[in-house]
């Protein structure tokens, strides 16, 4: 049904999504916590920056990434010189692009959950001797877990569909950075490729449905645990 190259794209998509969620989520949690719970001078700037990938067309985001993380870019040079890491045109780069694109939504979902928490429970934890980080890990985050889950699901789904930033930053290299959306794009660029595109879209959709079902199950368990 699918060609080996397309299977490879499926595998790659899942890998990219996994990496993007895996690396993006912790950072998103920290950012959401900073935005929800602290008041520091640079807060509005951080808030605006977080939303940037949403506000700019994906191609522009990809282009900015290229400029920042490219081999000639300021961060890219550092990474390469110090760690020998190269992001552009690699799977890692595709994951980065994808993580950046979903970052705003992850942060918003987690922040929404954090801001909806009952402050009384954290007060209770304090009175029981739990310090800031302790509280964060034992009370705040578990209670915000439905928001974290939503962040992860949305990020996963977005990675299945993210195209502009990935192709611009990481190029469209089969087996390396050609994820499903890029393959779909490629198919659409070819006269008569609609059937192929539709087929790949269906694959993408199937992956999404599987992810969604899992997340619904998990979400229901989380909510039950939290007594809702």
């Amino acid at each position, binding site marked *: 049904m699918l060609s080996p190259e397309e299977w490879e794209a499926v595998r790659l998509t899942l890998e990219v999504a996994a990496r993007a969620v895996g690396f993006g989520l912790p950072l998103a949690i920290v950012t959401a916590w900073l935005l929800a719970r602290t008041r520091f001078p640079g807060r509005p700037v951080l808030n605006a920056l977080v939303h940037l990938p949403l506000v700019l067309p994906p191609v522009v985001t990809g282009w900015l990434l290229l400029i920042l993380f*490219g081999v000639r*870019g300021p961060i890219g040079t550092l990474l390469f010189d110090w760690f020998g890491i190269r992001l552009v045109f690699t799977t890692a780069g595709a994951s980065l692009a994808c993580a950046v694109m979903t970052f705003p939504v992850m942060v918003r979902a987690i922040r929404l959950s954090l801001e909806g928490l009952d402050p009384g429970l954290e007060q209770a934890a304090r009175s029981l001797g739990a310090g800031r980080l302790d509280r964060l890990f034992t009370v705040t985050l578990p209670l915000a877990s439905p928001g974290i889950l939503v962040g992860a699901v949305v990020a996963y789904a977005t990675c299945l569909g993210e195209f502009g930033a990935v192709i*611009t930053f990481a*190029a469209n*290299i089969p087996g390396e950075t050609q994820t499903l959306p890029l393959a779909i794009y*490629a198919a659409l660029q070819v006269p008569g490729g609609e059937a192929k595109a539709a087929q790949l879209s269906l694959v993408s959709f199937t992956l999404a449905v599987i992810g969604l079902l899992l997340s619904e199950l998990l979400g229901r368990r989380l909510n039950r645990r939290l007594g809702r």
Partner: protein
Amino acid sequence: TVFAAASLTDALKDVASVWVKQGHPAPRLSFAASSTLARQIEQGAPANLFASADEKWMNYLVDRHLIAADTRRSLLGNDLVLVVPANHPRHVDIRPGFDFASLLGRDGRLAMGDPTHVPAGIYAEQALKKLGVWNAVSPHLARAEDVRAALLLVERGEAPAGIVYGTDAAVSKGVMVAGIFPADTHDPVTYPFAVTKAGDTPEARALLAFLAGPEARAIFVKRGFKVE
């Protein structure tokens, strides 16, 4: 690695498979918009060969000394055609001052690539100006992101007519060619190929030579391209 304009996807894949059959290692192909590819090469992308859909992005790289200038050649050409939906077949005699108004109807739009940046759109603008209908038509354009999108608009009957490449029109079942723009109405449609400076290997040059060779030509012709 070959960086090629997305419209060349199928043709280049076919050529590559023949090339592999001849015992060469498989080239990696990355398809995207010419602009994206050019910027990536500028940022140090590991491309050996660049196949652009228009001259200006090739010039862009040449100006930045990123291209082995001696290898640049315009291997392929294409026709610019006027298409109409297949279920409203008609024939248009394309000559100076022909009646676009009646072709488009009261509020129909002419679908074509965005003349500010899409090559096919730029050629179409040249042609329409030459034919003296540009001023009449330009308020009624549906500027698409690329040729494929323009074609889709005609296929779906959203636009009663569109200007696309002959290669696209040939494959689509939803449209029929109503007329071909005479070659003298616009600059020749060309696809410049070149080896990049950074990726200037004998292997790359050999592949470029192969692309100019008879086996490749046969494939290109089969796909509807004009070859030199």
